[in-house]
């Protein structure tokens, strides 16, 4: 009687010996590439932002942040400045340059909630001079 010779199937197995190496490589990659935000001398902590309910998300890639401290120090591009008179044009000059680089520029205000409105008004006037008209006031969610 004829017999069919049956070949034994070899089990296909994916080598798993290197998964731990791959995982550790990924871990090392994340550890090496992570950049921590450095502690700045001029900074407005999140708990100092005003509260608001109607919050909307702002696309990060087109934003430039202006920090305004309670003592009216303004931080733009890591350069601290103050508006002493209406002749000061540092902010408008900087924003004209930024607007030329990115026409969709949105200026975000990270302002201490106890800052007097006068300084904000002065900055906004310079924003208008620079034709940078889209602004966002950074806020934290309203406490329930």
């Amino acid at each position: 009687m004829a017999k069919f010779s049956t070949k034994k199937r070899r089990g296909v197995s994916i080598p798993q010996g290197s998964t731990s190496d791959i995982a550790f490589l990924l871990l090392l990659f994340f550890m090496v590439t992570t950049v921590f935000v450095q502690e700045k001398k001029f900074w407005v902590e999140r708990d100092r932002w005003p509260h608001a309910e109607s919050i909307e998300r702002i696309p990060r890639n087109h934003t430039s942040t202006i920090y305004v401290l309670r003592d009216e120090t303004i931080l733009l591009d890591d350069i601290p400045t103050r508006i002493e008179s209406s002749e000061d044009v540092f902010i408008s000059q900087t924003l004209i340059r930024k607007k030329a680089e990115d026409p969709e520029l949105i200026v975000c205000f990270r302002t201490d909630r106890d800052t007097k409105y006068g300084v904000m008004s002065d900055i906004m006037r310079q924003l208008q001079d620079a034709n940078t008209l889209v602004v966002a006031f950074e806020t934290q969610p309203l406490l329930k």
Partner: protein
Amino acid sequence: MAAIPTASTGDIAFLLIIFFMSTTKFDVKEGIKLVLPQAAEVESGKTQTLTLTEKEMTRIQILPDGQIALNREAPRYIESSELDVIIQQKVQINPDMIFKVITDRETKYSEMIRVVDRLKAAKIEKISLSTS
């Protein structure tokens, strides 16, 4: 010979990755977005003077102590909930109502944000910011 078992190192590494991925917080920007009007060109004569009535525009003046004066009313402290009701009443009178928020230079920034927030919550688009 005693050997340290290494079979689970992959699991440990993946657990670490998952931990870092889940705990990482991205610095998302959130806030109140506004579009400022263009700078007025007074010298060129391009500006127009408009006289608006109370039916067309509501003045919300915020004083340094946080009191709010609506149109010609006497200034008083207005809670956010009451402000919501007032805004709704104004919108019922005129759906295209313009709200002019006049903030004193000495007023706290958070007071201006509170009023603008209430206007934004009521889906008001015509908001004007100015200072006194």
